């Protein structure tokens, strides 16, 4: 591989096994390295720049390729190209850059090219609050590119999870052949905490499904999905003469511009993620057993929510927390079940946006859903959540 440099004794290993006191952005970069990142392309933007910088330093030393692109349009295109050639690829950005990437996120979904995209959310819209926290890109991550497609998004609540979930993101991306997002927020990206990195052999790895046919075998249809709705992926340079296009295409990969092919393809792209949702969804539950008030929160806000739930319990209010570790697919079944419980009386959804994930909860329950919203710039405090819990 290019950029390979023989490791010297002083070169830190690819997997930095051990305990570290590490900032979230770096933990994310280390997670990517541990997951076997081959190729990073990015463009600096606060508060994700530390991911880019860490990888500029680390990736070439362990045989990977780092490219600082001319912009985010180029960054996302480059990681798709490298992934089409077989690499595990990553880019990292924040709101404005994320917006620029949207078109090719749709291309990744359509061409079924796996990749991981980190968005460290800051106050928005537009340039907004470059250095301060926001959580308002969660719907953009789900719906930002035009059309219907499925994606997976994770939202870490600690530097440790930045590490763990980045690894998971790679595995899910390769397994499902989709773009996977790690939606960090500025507080998590910029906070430093203990991060435990396991030995290299304990890092889970799920690779893409690869064709079982020989190159040249006319039977091989590069976009014919197996029963799991996922087609095996042939890479550039292997002799399969594949054709990838963003146009609606048939199982050969050839453009087929008609309603029927479109229906089949888009349905599969959406269903592929839906049927594998149980593998992708991750939540954490705190004190939900007898809860009367269920807080649904993610990212840094989940930390305040956890504190608020503990404080509410001290005051005799039976509160519990459903922490969304994966934002997409949304854990619909779980929220529906909670809403059907006799004990549960209401939901509370704090988030640093003007009301996004609360809509997901609202569509799944008839119970009251109270949202706590801040436009961005600061964390929601435990006290402000507590007030709603005890009200």
């Amino acid at each position, binding site marked *: 591989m290019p950029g390979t440099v023989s490791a010297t004794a002083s070169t830190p290993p690819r997997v930095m096994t051990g305990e570290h006191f590490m900032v979230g952005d770096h933990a994310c970069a280390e997670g990517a390295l541990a997951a076997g990142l081959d190729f990073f392309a990015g463009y600096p933007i606060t508060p994700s720049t530390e991911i880019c910088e860490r990888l500029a330093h680390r990736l070439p030393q362990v045989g990977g*390729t780092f490219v600082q692109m001319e912009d985010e349009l180029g960054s996302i295109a480059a990681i798709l190209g490298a992934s089409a050639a077989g690499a595990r690829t990553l880019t990292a950005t924040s709101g404005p850059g994320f917006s620029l990437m949207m078109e090719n996120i749709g291309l990744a979904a359509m061409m079924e090219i796996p990749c991981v995209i980190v968005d460290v959310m800051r106050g928005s819209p537009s340039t907004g609050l470059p250095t301060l926290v926001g959580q308002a890109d969660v719907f953009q991550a789900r719906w930002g590119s035009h059309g219907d497609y499925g994606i997976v998004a994770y939202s870490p609540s600690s530097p440790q999870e930045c590490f763990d979930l980045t690894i998971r993101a790679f595995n899910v991306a390769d397994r499902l052949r989709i773009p996977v997002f790690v939606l960090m927020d500025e507080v998590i990206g910029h906070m430093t905490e203990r991060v435990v990195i396991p030995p290299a052999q304990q890092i889970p790895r799920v690779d893409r499904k690869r064709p079982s046919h020989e190159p040249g075998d006319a039977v091989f249809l590069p976009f014919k999905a197996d029963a799991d709705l996922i087609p095996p992926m042939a890479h550039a340079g292997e002799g399969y003469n594949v054709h990838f296009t963003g146009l609606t295409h048939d199982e050969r990969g050839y453009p087929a511009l008609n309603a029927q092919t479109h229906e089949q393809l888009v349905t599969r792209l959406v269903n592929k993620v839906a049927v594998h949702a149980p593998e992708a969804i991750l939540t954490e539950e705190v004190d939900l057993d007898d809860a009367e008030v269920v807080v649904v929160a993610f990212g840094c806000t989940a930390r305040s929510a956890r504190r608020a739930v503990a404080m509410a319990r001290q005051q005799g209010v039976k509160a519990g927390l459903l922490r969304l570790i994966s934002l997409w697919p949304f854990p619909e079944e779980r929220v529906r079940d909670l809403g059907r419980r006799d004990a549960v009386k209401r939901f509370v959804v704090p988030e640093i946006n003007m009301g996004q994930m609360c809509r997901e909860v609202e569509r799944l329950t008839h119970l009251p859903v109270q949202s706590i919203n801040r436009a961005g710039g600061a964390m929601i405090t435990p006290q402000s959540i507590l007030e709603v819990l005890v009200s």
Partner: protein
Amino acid sequence: MSVPAPAATQFVEEHPIDTLLRADRFPHILCPACGIGSVIHCYVQAISESGIDKAQHVCVSGIGCSGRAAGYINVDSYHTTHGRAVPFALGIAVYRPELCVTVISGDGDLSSIGGNHLIHAARRNVNLNIICINNFNYGMTGGQAGPTTPVSAKSSTTPFGSWERPFNLPHLAHAVGASLVSRWTVLHARQLKQTILKAMHKQGFAFIEVLSPCPTGFGRPNDRGDGIEDMRRYRQRCVIDDEAYLPDIDIDITDDTSPIVVGNFVDIDRPPFQPVLGAPRREVAKVLAENANQRTRSRESVGHEH
């Protein structure tokens, strides 16, 4: 066919380049007398003569009529988004440097919406072969003006004639650092194929502009006749001048007697883009030396009388 073939005619099952085209995708979508097919032909001819294993060739396109090229060529091919063929190709070429990656796309795709990627890939000297099919307009969307539309040319968005200064693409490519810069027309099939071959074997950024008739989008509003007439014009007007002074090779469509300068203008060796750990000293020295060279050359050429 019911007419029996003359005895001397020999039928062969396959043409040598058959396997390089996706015959199962024909008929193609291109208009009659469109020049894009000729470019595709030159490219596959070059593949077959390149001596490079077919499996090592990768073709990347953006969006446009020209961008459809990738879809007809039977090598690993990627039909990406409008303007992003170059960075997509960069990802492939940098990750798998042993592959021979060629971008075939339109003037609008490469120099308008993708202009930023073009200049940066050239600046870095990414090992890519760029075949830019210049038909002076956005053919795919129905003949709008773009950054190559000549002054005075009419299009659906310049109904009174364009008054913007267009790009002189070879001059641009040279200025931003391309290692190989050429301009041909679809009439120059043999030269074009030779230049593509040269690009395939060259380490670095090769930019080949191919002037191509678009009777539908450009010919009609500008009374240029059909594609054949364009070919006739190419034959009358083209002057091969490898030593041409690049700032002077703008194309004038108001004067059909003025020359269209074509040729292999630039062929220099610069270290190709390869992200490595630290800049190797030798390479740094080479880059600096080449920059100095280029400055001297520019100064000399500015001194020329043209």
